[in-house]
């Protein structure tokens, strides 16, 4: 018996030694050594078999191939690679939408091939229009000189491309000399006593670096007042023109169309007018100290120059521009020389910023950031798109502002802001007695008097309601409350407060098992007795709902003072995994893909532009698998091709749509997108760079496994 106990002890003891020492891939070897050691040291008969067990996961991966055989993968720019939790990546190259300029007469077409490149075939697919706007050239300053209001974002037109090599290792835009230019969005009242700063490079004796006129779009509509222009004359020299009853013009003594970067500064003020090239004052006049008085907009790469002396054959600049700025003071020669002496981008940038510029366009833009503010000629929009495809669009009422900055967790994302007193969103469609659903929304507030995130009442507007429950609100302490009425007011309340000014994602769920409240992906409160809700038909509201004092935690203010983004009603109780996928989506595009897979009853991304710019484009989207064509937008039965383009199928209606047309191994899906300009679109939007923000995704069953690619760079000229 002693001998036997010794054998047992050896078997028990040695593994403990091994456990401590086994590391990484040596573990198997260690285990085998253990077996050998055990047998040898036990001095007893022993038989041992040893092997390894392995468990392997598959992969769900998506490859998109756009025109020119440009490939993009859900893991990033190349095949293979690390698979992240969201498994959705933006494609830096390629475009699934037509290139060139859209016309209202003929449709343009682009095709994309979607291939399953993982080891597991997905079971469903989604296409999402996650955002829409026009490409912006950001103004890093937000001064209010000359009655300007905030950043003077510029908009790209025509043959303007991004990310060329600039001076001081910066980036630059490149203009084609025939169609490319940029207009600014902020109107200024008679800029005086200022200095224009610009870096340019050209070999063409044509075009304006900058100009100012009383037409925001001097290409489409000739201005009646125009001066403060810096251009390349037919001799290749740099001209600076100020109109003060006469055309006062300074001209550089040397040519500047040498193909090298030139640093130019031009000013007007009490010291007169001055023109500097590469830090040296090359021309000046003391008799002209002010310009013509009018309100107008700055333009870059184009200026209206008719009747000026020494005008070039083309007003379009051909070459590269970088680091444009307007400083609201007349710089001295020493200041200009100092700027010219900055040898790095950071010191130059600091030098310009130290001058408190009214506008400063670094022109290092990617061309992929949508400007969602008001666009001239596009018309204002108060419609908040329902991307579910169920036509339950929202309407911004009262103090609602569109195109605010959305949650940083979703990358470049937009939101609506609500003023807390009149602003709310009413929706179009009535729903009969929803009993199983999940409300989803990102919100941000610092309110100390509460406010509604979403609610449901029998009145479409913001009048007194007879029936009102299914309300998700913040109480006065900032705690989230979800309440239903089942004969009594049944609430579920978070223990923490969320009125801290940070973005939070809230999910409120109702089902036969009661109420659940999730915040930032975590279940924070439940109420099993909180079901069913009161039976009535009603409308969903965002940012407001009708309240009475019957609710135990009624907020002082039923209007939300804050911001909302990515709101939805899903007709199911979302699982922890689904909520996690939404919360960790990482981008607006990925969020839209995930939400699309959930087949929401209503989905308001709240990414809407303040202008109706994306309502100017007609679109259809068709998917082809084998020989079968299926129209995804407008939705048609499987096997039915898309109808002809019409004003009934606008880009604003594309939304986020699920599809059973799924690429499987060896059987890719071809996506065909047709577009044309709406016949009713204004001439002022022509040649703007529109960014439709399209994304494609696939998913395996109802698991968290999905793959997506998005095309933030995809743009088309209107």
């Amino acid at each position, binding site marked *: 018996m002693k001998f036997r106990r010794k*054998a047992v002890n050896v078997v028990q003891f040695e593994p403990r030694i091994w456990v401590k020492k*086994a590391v990484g891939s040596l573990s198997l070897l260690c285990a085998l050594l*253990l*077996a050998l050691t055990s047998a040898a040291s036990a001095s007893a008969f022993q*038989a*041992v*078999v040893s092997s390894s*067990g*392995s468990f392997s996961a598959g992969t769900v991966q998506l490859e998109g191939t756009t025109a020119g055989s440009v490939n993009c993968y859900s893991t990033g720019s190349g095949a293979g690679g690390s698979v992240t939790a969201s*498994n959705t990546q933006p494609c830096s190259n390629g475009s699934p939408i037509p290139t060139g300029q859209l016309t209202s007469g003929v449709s343009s077409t682009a095709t994309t091939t979607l291939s399953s490149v993982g080891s597991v075939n997905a079971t469903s697919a989604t296409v999402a229009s996650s955002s829409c706007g026009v490409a912006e050239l950001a103004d890093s300053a937000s001064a209010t000189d000359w009655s300007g209001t905030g950043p003077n974002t510029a908009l790209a037109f025509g043959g303007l491309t991004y990310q060329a090599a600039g001076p001081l290792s910066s980036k630059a835009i490149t203009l084609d000399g025939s169609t490319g230019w940029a207009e600014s969005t902020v109107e200024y009242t008679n800029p005086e006593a200022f200095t224009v700063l610009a870096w340019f490079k050209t070999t063409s004796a044509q075009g304006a670096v900058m100009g100012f006129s009383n037409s925001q779009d001097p290409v489409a509509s000739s201005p009646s007042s125009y001066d403060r222009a810096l251009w390349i004359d037919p001799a290749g020299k740099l001209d600076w023109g100020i109109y003060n009853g006469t055309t006062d013009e300074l001209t550089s003594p040397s040519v500047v169309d040498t193909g090298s970067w030139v640093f130019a500064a031009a000013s007007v003020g009490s010291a007169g007018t001055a023109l500097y090239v590469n830090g040296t004052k090359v021309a000046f006049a003391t008799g002209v100290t002010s310009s013509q008085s009018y309100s107008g907009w700055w333009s870059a790469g184009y200026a209206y120059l008719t009747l000026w002396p020494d005008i070039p054959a083309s007003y379009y600049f051909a070459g590269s521009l970088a680091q444009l700025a307007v400083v609201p003071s007349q710089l001295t020669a020493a200041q200009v020389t100092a700027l010219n002496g900055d040898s790095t981008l950071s010191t130059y940038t600091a030098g310009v910023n130290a001058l408190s510029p009214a506008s400063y366009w670094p022109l290092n833009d990617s061309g992929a950031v949508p400007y969602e503010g008001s666009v001239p000629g596009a018309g204002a929009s108060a419609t908040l798109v329902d991307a579910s495809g169920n036509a339950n669009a929202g309407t911004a009422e009262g103090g609602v502002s569109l195109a605010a900055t959305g949650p940083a967790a979703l990358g470049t994302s937009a939101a609506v802001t609500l003023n807390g007193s009149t602003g709310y969103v009413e929706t179009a469609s009535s729903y009969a007695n929803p009993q199983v659903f999940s409300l989803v929304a990102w919100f941000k507030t610092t309110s100390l008097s509460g406010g509604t995130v979403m609610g449901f009442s029998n009145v479409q507007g913001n009048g007194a309601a007879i029936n009102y429950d299914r309300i998700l609100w913040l109480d006065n302490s900032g705690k989230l409350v979800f309440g239903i009425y089942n004969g009594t007011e049944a609430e579920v309340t978070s223990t923490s407060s969320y009125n801290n000014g940070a973005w939070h994602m809230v999910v409120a769920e109702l089902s036969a098992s009661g109420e659940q409240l999730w915040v930032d992906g975590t279940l924070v409160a439940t109420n099993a007795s909180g079901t069913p809700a009161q039976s009535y038909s009603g409308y969903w509201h965002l940012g407001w709902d009708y309240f009475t004092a019957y609710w135990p935690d009624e907020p002082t203010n039923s209007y939300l003072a804050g911001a909302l983004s990515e709101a939805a009603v899903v007709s199911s109780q979302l699982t922890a995994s689904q909520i996690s996928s939404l919360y960790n989506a990482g981008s607006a595009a990925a969020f839209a893909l995930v939400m699309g897979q959930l087949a929401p009853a209503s989905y308001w991304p709240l990414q809407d532009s303040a202008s109706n710019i994306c309502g100017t484009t007609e679109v259809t989207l068709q998917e082809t698998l084998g020989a079968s064509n299926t129209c995804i937008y407008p939705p048609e039965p499987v096997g039915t091709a898309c109808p002809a383009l019409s004003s009934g199928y606008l880009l604003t209606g594309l939304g986020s749509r699920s599809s059973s047309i799924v690429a499987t191994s060896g059987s890719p899906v071809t996506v065909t997108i047709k577009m044309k300009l709406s016949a009713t679109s204004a001439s002022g939007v022509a040649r703007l760079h529109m960014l439709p923000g399209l994304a494609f995704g696939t998913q395996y069953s109802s698991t968290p496994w999905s793959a997506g690619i998005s095309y933030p760079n995809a743009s088309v000229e209107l």
Partner: protein
Amino acid sequence: MHRVSRHKGALVASLAAVAALGMTASSTLGGFSAGINNSTSTFSSATIQLEEGNGGSTCYSTGSGSGGPVTATNTNTTCTINALVGTLDQVPGGTALSTTLTFTNAGNHNATVASLVTGACTQATASDANSYAGSDTSFCNKVDVTVANTTTGATDKCVYPTQAGTCPALSNTYNLTSFASTTFNAVPLSVLAAGASATYVVTTQLDSGVATNADQGLTATVPFTWSISQ
């Protein structure tokens, strides 16, 4: 003498010694004599041998096949039976993988000790992943596992998690990380008498609640060492 003549093959020294004894006895006692030679005496050792099978493959502790020379370690480190089945391309919440392992004491001596030692769980890129490897570094945590002792008459039915009853349903409470680097001894394992067999069912699944896209294209590996001894 007659008996001596029948053993002509005996050593010469022995023959001479016996003859000398006979002469001496004859000369001294002058009577009959008798002797016993235990010429068939043997001493034989028993065998304890372990055979593992999964219905398709069989593995023996001696090495390549049934029988064969028994080395001092009597350990086969080259078994290819995959205790976790090894089927590629598992998905979250997919059909659970299950394999039945049968262990037989193919020797003629009863074992009194049985053990299962699991090594550390390691992860690597799956063989068919085409370089798509999830970024999760805790894939082993995401694989649910149970090991049931289904031997008829077994006292304890669940090896992992160790409990008297049958194994619980798969859940993330019991995963490859917590299963790994563990020694399981006679209870709940079945100690094998000579010729007796025991069966174990290993069940695994990629957990649907905790696995994310970052768990795609990964393989988890756990060494299994099964032994019986005297």
